């Protein structure tokens, strides 16, 4: 992809295929399905952060008129005793099974302990109040410091730290270390060394659609689920695993998904809905309330990061070292590994090391959140770089450019980078008029860089040619951010036909091959690759069919500009896709192509953001007044949706930086489980988000795609925090920068 190739469709901005349904209210999301015999399921949740369940009495609930089924963990198979014995309980499914319904002990406030199905939602709620549970409250741990203390209360009584030889029982589920060289040696070479500590609070993905599903079962064991998730194959596999059902008996029909950001890459309700359906013989619909979403679905939790950076007086980084503690919630499994891998990723370091600890606390089980683990890590590194630039008296972008990762740089997480766009992204930021625009009083500007790996994983695709020459594409990935459009654009490009002649269908688990979740910024890259391969399969068949029509060897036929042509001198008129499609029956039958692959050649992504803020010196309120996001997309298939990812990620990051946080009381109860007090940005909180798409094509993808969804949430936190420093002269190292904290900082009360 070295020379600029001209595309007809790739890079244009047509209307997404599912657009009409989504602006008219016709699109069906998780809670929009109903069946005539349907019951409503609801979950009883723990009022304690940590307690032993002494007894659960369901009799009064069962006796309530309209109640058709009641369940507890007793109704789930205990598949995992063996796994738990052999590996100390670290089997991921063991944790998931215990998370969807508590066994023996509740591990966080909001932990599911029972569920009911009744003829109405109101009766189901009433029934929950009739379930009598006796608890023996236990001491709980709510933060990193107390969880890692030597005399800490244990969240699990049987877990030892993975990755540490001879470790004893602990709340540290895992320890990981990576890097290269010897940081001590590197710091000796430095003229300036800065060491700082950073903390962040739990935040939620904040998707607008609560988790929802509808389950239907048959007496012979078949299960149909309508579910809103980031991957219906994930829902199928996890539900089947937790209930010990053959995969072939479970059909998951993907609903449209109302946002996920990583939070819908696991199951909460589906196994319960299936059990309730089996017990009642009716279909069961379950929808979380917003409060349940906050209390019991995966946030990303709190972190503490200590980071040390060394540089020469010329502004060359000599060493970086970081210790990261990430809360993983009640089961561990935090994103600390990704934190360790990304924290120094954008730059070249001769000596670098990061050590991570995955810490269990009595809070909800964490889930992935957009570039999991990276934003907190970038907060630490990118604000220390800002401080370093000031100390060295160099421009902060210049300092970053001097050290930026490029092809051949040994990445802090291991391998050598291939072609990446970190330098190009920073140069585009530096050259943007925003970077040199004047600022007013109490205003400041910050910049920061963000990195994410992007992902490949497994995808399947089908391409069916219809008799009228239109094309139906089958994908196994729920479309969250416009991927139907990007798949259709690549298909149109592959065939040389009109975009409008391509329809993309998100097929259920019985209608398309296995496909991994919509996550990791992988769909346009990986499923796109599968679609391109399936299209190639169809093109090959089209050439064969043209050969049949022309009675020549298939090798003599090529596909060019949307039609089959005979190579060399020929008076045969080319055959169009439509002509070949129409005649498919008499040339060999219907034409369809398929591809299933593990996508290789993932292109890593970099972004760089500029943020201007104005700080009210008397109240500490921070307002973002201008914002520009720059990112290497590799290739923007549909630039509007690439911009949309950049803008959305930027605003999520702004929210995380300024106002979003879980507030727990001393009993471990979440005090702000609603959108009123869990403050995601509203429209009047933010300015327009300018975007610059840099295209350093990924050489391993036919169109150069890298993946774009995650990178944009990595840079905003440090960009905002650096801007607040520029406006106030105070460095903040604890999120969020809420008005009381900022005012205290301005008063010198808490700023370091």
């Amino acid at each position, binding site marked *: 992809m070295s020379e600029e190739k001209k595309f007809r469709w790739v890079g244009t901005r047509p209307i997404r295929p599912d657009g009409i349904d989504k602006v008219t209210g016709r699109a069906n999301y998780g809670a929009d399905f109903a069946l005539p015999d349907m019951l409503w399921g609801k979950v009883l949740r723990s009022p304690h952060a940590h307690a032993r369940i002494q007894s659960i009495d369901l009799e009064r609930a069962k006796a309530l008129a309209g109640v058709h089924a009641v369940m507890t963990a007793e109704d789930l198979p205990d598949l995992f005793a063996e796994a738990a014995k052999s590996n100390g309980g670290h089997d991921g499914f063991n944790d998931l099974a215990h998370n969807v319904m508590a066994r023996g002990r509740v591990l966080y406030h909001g932990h599911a302990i029972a569920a009911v199905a009744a003829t109405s939602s109101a009766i189901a709620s009433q029934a929950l109040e009739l379930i009598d549970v006796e608890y023996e409250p236990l001491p709980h741990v709510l933060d990193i410091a107390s969880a890692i203390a030597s005399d800490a209360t244990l969240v699990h009584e049987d877990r030892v730290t993975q990755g540490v030889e001879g470790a004893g029982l602990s709340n540290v589920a895992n320890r990981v270390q990576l890097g290269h060289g010897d940081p001590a040696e590197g710091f000796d070479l430095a003229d300036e060394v800065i060491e700082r500590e950073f903390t962040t609070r739990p935040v939620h993905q904040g998707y607008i659609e609560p988790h929802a599903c509808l389950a239907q079962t048959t007496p012979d064991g078949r299960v149909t689920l309508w579910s809103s998730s980031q991957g219906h194959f994930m829902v199928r596999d996890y539900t089947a695993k937790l209930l010990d059902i053959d995969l072939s008996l479970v059909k998951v029909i993907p609903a449209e998904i109302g946002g996920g950001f990583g939070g819908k890459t696991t199951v909460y309700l589906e196994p319960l809905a299936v059990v309730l359906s089996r017990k009642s013989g009716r279909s069961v619909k379950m929808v979380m309330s917003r409060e349940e979403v906050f209390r019991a679905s995966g946030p990303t939790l709190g972190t503490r990061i200590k980071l040390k950076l060394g540089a020469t007086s010329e502004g060359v980084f000599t060493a970086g070292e970081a210790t990261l503690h990430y809360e993983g919630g009640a089961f561990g499994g935090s994103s600390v590994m990704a934190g360790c891998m990304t924290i120094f990723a954008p730059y070249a370091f001769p000596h670098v090391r990061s050590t991570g600890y995955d810490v269990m606390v009595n809070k909800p089980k964490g889930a992935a959140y957009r*570039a999991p683990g990276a934003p907190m890590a970038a907060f630490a590194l990118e604000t220390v770089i800002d401080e370093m630039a000031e100390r060295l008296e160099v421009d902060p972008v210049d300092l970053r450019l001097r050290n930026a990762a490029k092809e051949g740089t040994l990445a802090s*997480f291991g391998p050598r980078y291939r072609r990446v766009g970190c330098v190009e992204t920073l140069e585009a930021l530096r050259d943007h008029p925003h970077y040199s625009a004047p600022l007013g009083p109490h205003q400041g500007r910050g910049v920061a860089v963000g990195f994410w790996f992007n992902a490949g994983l497994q995808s399947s695709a089908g391409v069916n040619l219809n008799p009228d020459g239109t094309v139906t594409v089958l994908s196994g990935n729920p479309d969250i951010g416009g991927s139907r459009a990007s798949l259709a654009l690549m298909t149109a490009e592959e065939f040389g036909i009109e975009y409008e002649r391509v329809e993309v269908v998100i097929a259920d688990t019985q209608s398309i091959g296995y496909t991994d979740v919509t996550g990791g910024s992988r769909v346009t890259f990986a499923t796109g690759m599968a679609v391109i391969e399936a299209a190639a399969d169809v093109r090959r068949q089209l050439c064969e069919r043209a050969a049949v029509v022309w009675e020549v060897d298939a090798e003599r036929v090529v596909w060019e500009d949307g039609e089959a042509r005979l190579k060399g001198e020929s008076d045969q008129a080319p055959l169009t896709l439509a002509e070949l499609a129409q005649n498919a029956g008499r040339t060999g039958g219907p034409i369809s192509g398929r591809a299933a692959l593990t996508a*290789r050649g993932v292109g890593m992504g970099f972004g760089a953001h500029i943020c201007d803020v104005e700080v009210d010196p008397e109240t500490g309120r921070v307002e973002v007044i201008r914002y520009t996001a720059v990112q290497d997309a590799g290739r923007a298939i549909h630039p509007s949706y690439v911009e949309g990812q950049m803008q959305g990620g930027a605003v999520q990051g702004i929210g995380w930086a300024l106002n979003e946080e879980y507030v727990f009381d001393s009993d471990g109860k979440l005090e702000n489980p609603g959108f009123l007090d869990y403050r995601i940005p509203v429209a009047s909180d933010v300015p327009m988000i300018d975007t610059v798409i840099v295209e350093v094509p990924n050489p391993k993808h036919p169109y150069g795609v890298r993946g774009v969804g995650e990178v944009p949430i990595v840079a905003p936190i440090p960009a905002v925090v650096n801007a607040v420093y520029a406006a106030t002269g105070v460095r903040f190292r604890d999120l969020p920068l809420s008005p009381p904290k900022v005012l205290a900082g301005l008063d010198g009360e808490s700023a370091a």
Partner: protein
Amino acid sequence: MARVVLPQALAPRAGGLLEHEVEGRNVRALLAALDARFPGLGAELEGRVAVAIDGEIYNDPLLEAVEPDSEVHFLPRVGGG
């Protein structure tokens, strides 16, 4: 021989060394060779890590091909949002 780089945490299991020259046509063969040299190490690596071969990360790498001059890094496995 491919150059294999282990996670730092596992160096103590491999004679204290991070880097090793290992023969093998794919990741499974590299793991077997490592396991022969440092009993148990191969199994440990197989259970929990992804691999970067010449700069590209593979999450399920067992059968990925390795060239004689490849640089192979064992990494923690990372998903995404």
